Each structure stands twice: as C-alpha cells, then as structure tokens.
C-alpha cells in the first residue's frame, strides 16, 4: 500500500489483537492433555483401546488463533468504522439544515434568537426588558443595543428590513440547531409502531431491515483513511456496488407491503428509477476502475495519490465520469431532483408513508447514510481520497516544501476525506434547494436515453486513455490539462447561450412567448 499516515488504526488494531492473542496463547497450558482413557471392548469393537493424548490446548489455540485474531480485528474495526461513520454523519443533516436554510432565506432558530433584539425601526416589541422588575432590564438594554448595532438590520425601511434582511448573520448563529439531529432521533424512537391492517406483516418488517442493513454494509468497504477500514478485499469496489444496489429491493418491498395505493405507486416508481440509474452508475464506476487499474478502492486512491502511479486526481482525467457519477448517485439516493418516489406533492412520502417511529427514523437515516456514502465515494474515486489538494506540488516547492510536507503529514487522511465529502454534500444540498422534481417517465427517459450512452462513452474514453497514454508511470501533466480544458470548453459551449431570441424559441418547444408584457406604466426600473 503506497499511501500512509500516522493514524494507523488498522495497524494498531491488528497489533493489539495479535499481542493479546499471543498472550492468551502463552497463558494456555502447554502440556498435552493426556487422559489415557481405556475404552473397554463392546459388541462394536472387539479389542479395548486407549485414547491417548487428545488435545493440546496451546496447539489447539494456535491453530485457531489466526481466525480468532481476524475475527476480533474485524469486530473492532467494524465498530470503529461504524462509530466514525455515525459520528461524522452528524455533520450531514447539520449541513443540510443550515445551508438549505440560508439558501431559502429561512433561518429558523437563528431568526428566532435574533428576534430578541431586532424589532421594527430598531425597537423590539415593547422593549420587553424594561418591564422586568427592579430595573434589572437596564444592562439587558445595553446588551441589546450593542447586538443591534452589530447584528441588527441594515435597511432603512423598517418593514422591509423586518422580513427582507439578507445580511450575513454571523458565525455564532451556526450553533443553534446542532442538537436537532439527536432530538429528532429520540422523537422517532418514542413513536408508536403502527402496521396497516391488511399489510403483509412479514414483508413490512423485513423491508426496513434490508434497506438499513445493506446501507450500513456499504460502509464496511469504504476506507475513511489509508488505515481506517473495516475490510479490504481485492474486489472491494465490486462488493460495495453490489450491496449498494440491494436497497431498491427493500424499497419495493416497503411500497408493496403497506397495502396502500400511494405507496405501491411510489415503490414501483422507485424500483424503476433505481434500476434505470444503477446501470450508468456501474458503467461509470467501471470506467474509474479501468483507468485506475484496480477494483480495490484503496488502490484506486493510491493510484491518484502516488508519485509513481497516476499522481493526478481522477476528476481531471475523466470529468465526464465525475459528472455522471454525481448525477446517477443523486438519483440512487433519491434526492431532489430525482425524488419522485417520495414526492410529497402527490404521494405524501411515497413508499415509506405507512412507516412510523424508529423504522421510519432509521430508513430516513439510511437515506442520509447513502448520500454520505455517495459523497465519500466521489471523494475517493475522483478527488484523490485522503490527499490534500496539490500535496505533491506543494511538497516539491523549493524552500517551504519541507515544512509544508511536515505540516500536511500531521493531518490524518481522514480529515481530508471528510472535508471533501462534506463539501460535496453541500453541493447535493445546493442542488436540492434549487431544482425542481423531474417526472418519473422523464427520469427514466433521461437515464436510459442520455445517461446510458454517456456512461458508455465515458467507459470508452477511460479504456482509450489507459491503453494509449499509460506507460506505468505518472500521467503526463499535459494530459489532464488537455482533458479538463476540452471538457470545460464543451460544457461552456453547451451551457451558455448567446442568442437570447433563439434561446426563447428553443425554450418553448411549441414556440410560445408572452406577447403583451407588462410594459405600460414604465415602473420597471
């Protein structure tokens, strides 16, 4: 394994388990257990025989020791990884809530807190502090005045500023809302478990188990750092994609078993959508594996990091693949714009309408876990995993390189992965806040007609690049630059339209436009 940092949890666990098992081994008695039991002859066997030394505890233990060590190691690492995943996942709903609140101009607890000192015309409702007894309100009034000066309103017209103030509210306002995730979880845990009357009880109970267990199993193969993973088989990528794709089955079970027409429609939509997007996803990931030369996730990351290997992040080598991965992953985790299966507008939560309590809470958490897994996978496949941006370039700088390298080596790789994953999740949230929901048949059309050929194109490009330009060493620096420039150019050309009228006509496929626009009165400054 090429890359490494000081946070070697796997190594520590291994050495700790082997040390402890060695000690157990040494503690075991080393003599043979010699029973010297003589079994008399019976009708089954004519001659008596002696059972000699049957068992040597130490040797016996030595024979099972590797398996036992592996088991203990796996248990510990699973727990550690699960714990790390759940802890770092706390940031995910937090990012979602805060970021989407800022995007929607809906500030929640922040505004509530601010309303204590911000009122209209700079005066709060009734100057409440003056009503406190014994004049204790005076100092409060000073504090409020100071708060109003720094974080008050910034528009002259009081009632515009009351609702329309969009100024930056300060970083201290990020704290309220941190414990919302815990509060939500406890609420779900205390709610009643209701099963619909004619629901298929077995399938109804099995569906959340499938969804949740497969989602957590995905994290078994996801490395959080060069030495933080629960398991690292040679084909970890294949295993992980296979497990990722089992959850749609659970979704379909849930939709059908609830004995509800809405959930049935939701489950069917979900099954169709997830199937349609599994295939481009798998082909895209196959392209990544081809380019990186391995099915093992850690080796893919090492390929991007290693000075002797690729030394370029895959996103610069295959921007099309990164974009495809992003889109298909958003469809796989059923976020807006692809959340038709659980569209509130028609289906009131869709396939999980009938679930309540902890079953729903855990499935909801599973959806966020899948988004989190998608973000981490994107960071691993395309963004160089646990490497700092431009790490080798900075380390090669003439004078400061050594210090930079030392400073960077202090930060464990898990820190970089988390930063990239959380940043990517912020992009997911951004997309969610801005885009509309695509209709199911349009989703399917998009997946089969556009994404599938594009993913095949991506695979062909990956194969071509690997065959033509790979010579066993780092990529020629001009290659990613050329690829990124060409892709960026194509994107700009496709996205930006210069001819406004042509754009208007093209936007309305049936060429309709407003004829009488609201021009009279001319108050459109």
């Amino acid at each position, binding site marked *: 394994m090429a890359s490494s940092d000081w946070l070697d949890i796997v190594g520590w666990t291994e050495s700790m388990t082997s040390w402890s098992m060695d000690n157990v081994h040494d503690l075991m008695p080393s003599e043979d257990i010699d029973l010297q039991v003589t079994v008399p002859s019976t009708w089954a066997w004519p001659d008596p025989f002696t059972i000699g030394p049957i068992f040597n505890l130490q040797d016996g233990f030595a024979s099972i020791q590797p398996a036992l060590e592996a088991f203990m190691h796996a248990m510990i690492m699973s727990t550690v990884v699960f714990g790390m995943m759940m802890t770092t996942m706390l940031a995910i709903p937090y990012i979602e809530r805060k970021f*989407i609140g800022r*995007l*929607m*101009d*809906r500030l929640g607890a922040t505004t509530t807190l601010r309303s204590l000192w911000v009122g209209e015309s700079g005066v709060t409702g009734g100057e409440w502090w003056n009503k406190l007894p014994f004049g204790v309100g005076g100092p409060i009034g000073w504090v409020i005045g100071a708060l109003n000066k720094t974080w008050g309103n910034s528009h002259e*017209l009081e*009632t*515009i500023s*009351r*609702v*329309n103030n969009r100024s930056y509210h300060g970083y201290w306002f990020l704290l309220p809302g941190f414990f919302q995730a815990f509060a939500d979880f406890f609420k779900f845990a205390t709610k009643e478990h209701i099963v619909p009357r004619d629901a298929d009880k077995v399938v109804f109970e099995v569906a959340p188990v499938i969804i949740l267990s497969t989602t957590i199993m995905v994290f078994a193969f996801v490395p959080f750092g060069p030495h933080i993973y629960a398991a690292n088989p040679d084909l970890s990528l294949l295993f992980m994609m296979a497990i990722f794709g089992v959850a749609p089955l659970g979704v379909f079970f849930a939709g059908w078993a609830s004995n509800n*027409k*809405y959930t049935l*429609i939701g489950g069917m*939509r979900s099954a169709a959508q997830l199937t349609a997007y599994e295939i481009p996803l798998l082909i895209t990931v196959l392209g990544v594996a081809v380019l990186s030369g391995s099915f093992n996730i850690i080796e893919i990351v090492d390929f991007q990091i290693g000075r002797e290997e690729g030394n370029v992040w895959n996103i610069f080598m295959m921007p099309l693949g990164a974009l495809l991965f992003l889109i298909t992953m958003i469809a796989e985790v059923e976020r*807006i*714009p692809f*959340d*038709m299966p659980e*569209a*509130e*507008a*028609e289906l*009131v939560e869709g396939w999980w309408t009938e679930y309540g309590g902890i079953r729903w809470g855990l499935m909801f958490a599973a959806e966020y876990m899948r988004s989190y897994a998608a973000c981490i996978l994107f960071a691993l496949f395309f963004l160089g995993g646990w490497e700092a941006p431009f790490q080798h370039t900075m380390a090669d700088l003439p004078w400061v390189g050594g210090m930079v390298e030392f400073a960077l080596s202090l930060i464990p790789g898990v820190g970089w992965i988390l930063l990239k994953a959380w940043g990517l999740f912020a992009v997911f949230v951004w997309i*969610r*806040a*801005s*885009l*509309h*929901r*695509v*209709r*199911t*048949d*349009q989703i399917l059309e998009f997946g089969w007609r556009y994404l599938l050929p594009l993913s095949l194109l991506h695979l062909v490009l990956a194969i071509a690049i690997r065959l033509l330009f790979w010579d066993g060493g780092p990529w020629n620096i001009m290659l990613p630059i050329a690829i990124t420039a060409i892709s960026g150019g194509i994107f700009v050309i496709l996205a930006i339209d210069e001819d406004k009228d042509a754009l208007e006509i093209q*936007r*309305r*496929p*049936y*060429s*309709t*436009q*407003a*004829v*009488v*626009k*609201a021009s*009279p*009165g*001319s*108050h*459109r*400054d």
Partner: protein
Amino acid sequence: MAEMWISMGPQHPMTHGLWTLKVKVDGETVVDTEPDLGYIHRGVEKICESRDFTQITTYCDRLCYASANTWSHAYIYAAEDLLEVEVPERAEYIRLIAVEIQRIASHLMWLGAYGPDIGNLSIMVWCLREREMMMDLLQELGGSRMHYNFPRVGGVKRDLPYGFAQRARAKLKLFLNRIQEYEALYDESTIFLVRSQGVGYAKPEEMVNHGVSGPNLRAGGVNYDIRWAHPYSVYSELDWAPPVERSSIKGADCYDRYRVRVEEMRVSASMALQALDKIPGGADTHYEPEDPMILAKAPSRAPEGTSGAHHFEDSRGESMFYIAGGGEGRGKQPYRVSIRSPIFITIPFAAKCMIGYKVADIPAIMGSFDPCIGETDR
C-alpha cells in the same frame, strides 16, 4: 396493472385546500377524475340573509382568504349597485390600490405554493417573504393581515395612512426587482420547463364555454378581462393592459398559466404605483374616516324588487355577486345573496384537463389553475 381509483384528499399536501380529487389511474396514466367539494361549506349565502349590508363585508373577506380584498370589493360593488350609491373618485383609487396589491399577494401565494408542487422548495419561502411586504401594506390600509373589512358601501373605511405612499412605492419597486429572482428559479430551470410545458392543454373557446376566465383564460392567447369588458372603478384612468400569453396550438399549458400570473404581478404593481401618483387629492393627504372624499352617504335599505349584480375580476377569474333586496328589517338585510366563485367552475374543468396525463402531472395541472377552496365552498 389494473385501473384503480386513488383518492387525493381531503387531507393532502397538494390540493391547496380542503377537497377531494378522485383519480382513476391505469399505471401512471390518469384515465378519469371526479372532484368532490363542499368540505368547508360554511353557508355564507344563508348567513348573509340575516346580516346588514355592512356586516356582510366581513364574510366576503373570508370567502377566499388568500385574496380577501378582491372578494370584499366584489361584494361592495354589487351592494352599491343595489343601493344605487355613487362612490367618490378618491375612494375608487384607494380601492384600486388595495385590490391590486391584494392581487399581487394572491399571486405570490400561488407562486410560492406552485414551487413545492413541482419540487422546488426554495421558491416558497422567497415568495412568502415578498408577500409579507404586501401584507404589511395591506395591514396599514385595512388593519389586519388577512381579513381587512376594508371597503364600505359608498367608499372605504379609512384613507391612506401617513407615509403609506412612500412605503408602498419602495416596496413595490423592490418587489419588481425580486420578480426576476423567481423567474430565474423557474424559467431558467430546464426541469421546470419540461414539467410544465406540454401539460394540461386548454383552448380558449372551450374554457369560455366551461366558464373559466381570468388568468387561466388569458394564458390561451386572448385578452379578455372584466376590467375593460364590463368596466368598473378607475381602470380607464391608468395605463395598463392585461398580460396575454401566446399559447401553443393545442391550447394553454401550465407554463402559460404560470407566465401570465407573473406578468400580472408586474402589471398590478405598476397599476398601484400609477394610482398612487394619480390619486385625486394626492397620496400624502389624509382624510379622516367618513370624510365625503372617501365615503359617500349611502342608504341602508333596499326595498323588495330591487337587485344588484356586479362582475369583478378576481385574482382567479370572474367573480360575481347577485343581491336581491327586500329582506328582514324592511330591507335592511338582503333577501338573497348569491356568490359566483371562479374556482368552483374551474375545478371540474381542470379535472377534465388532467385526463390523459401522468399522475405526476396532477399537482402541476391543478396548481397551475390556482384553486382556493374557501371561495369554492363558500
């Protein structure tokens, strides 16, 4: 999959009010629909038969709560027709300002609710934020945020408050800039265009025969508007034209109905600004309540045999009141008040429009017709 009836409602996040839409689906395709109304039928028509003319205004506010001013003004014009009252011009201007700002607020509510129907969550908060500005203005005029009880038979309850003109101008100008943000979120989003175009076609002649009017009709390429066809108030004094969408060959789709309402918001804002400039007596003078500049003396009895009717351009179409005089108290109360709600007639038409499209198009189509169940059920 066999055909099955799904019942959307009465408790449903999409339906914009309390009603049921039974939909027969074949897979994902809608085959038949049946709307079911009457869940919030409060018997307003019957109640009005035992109320004085001034007391009825409060009930009319609550007909369509999202667009309260247009309904109370619709009633007041009919009452003035019945009682044969002439309204001072300044009062007409004040009424026009109130009605047009209310139209903006109602369309903002619709726009904010239409986004989540299609999946966009941000637009809801943005539109409600601007609607707060409009509601602040209407609160200054009418006294409360939602049900204003603003007009009186013969004029208005009170004049424009001090500083109202300055605040209204600032807010309307800010609002005109903000509309571009909504358009960015809708018009520049390919997903929205794909969801709303080609969905829910309706042709103008068919719409008129079904009784649909207002923005839904103007989305079809015709500029019929009660404000010029059966004129009332001082619309003739202002420079305006009802926005019209050039629909597609098959008729008006959801995108057209959306665009018409956005342009209507602009027109209403410009009308309110013009009215503030042109109001007789100036926008900064303030007359006391019951000053003859803003409220004319009106009789309070309507003998039997008289009747009053008035068509009004409500935010959602053509609303109408018919009042027959001669009720209790020797005519102090009406004998019969009959209310025409545009959405009551539009909902069966919208339900017919949905046939042939997908289940996912139901909220898009239904939302684009802007239902408000308060006026439907009266």
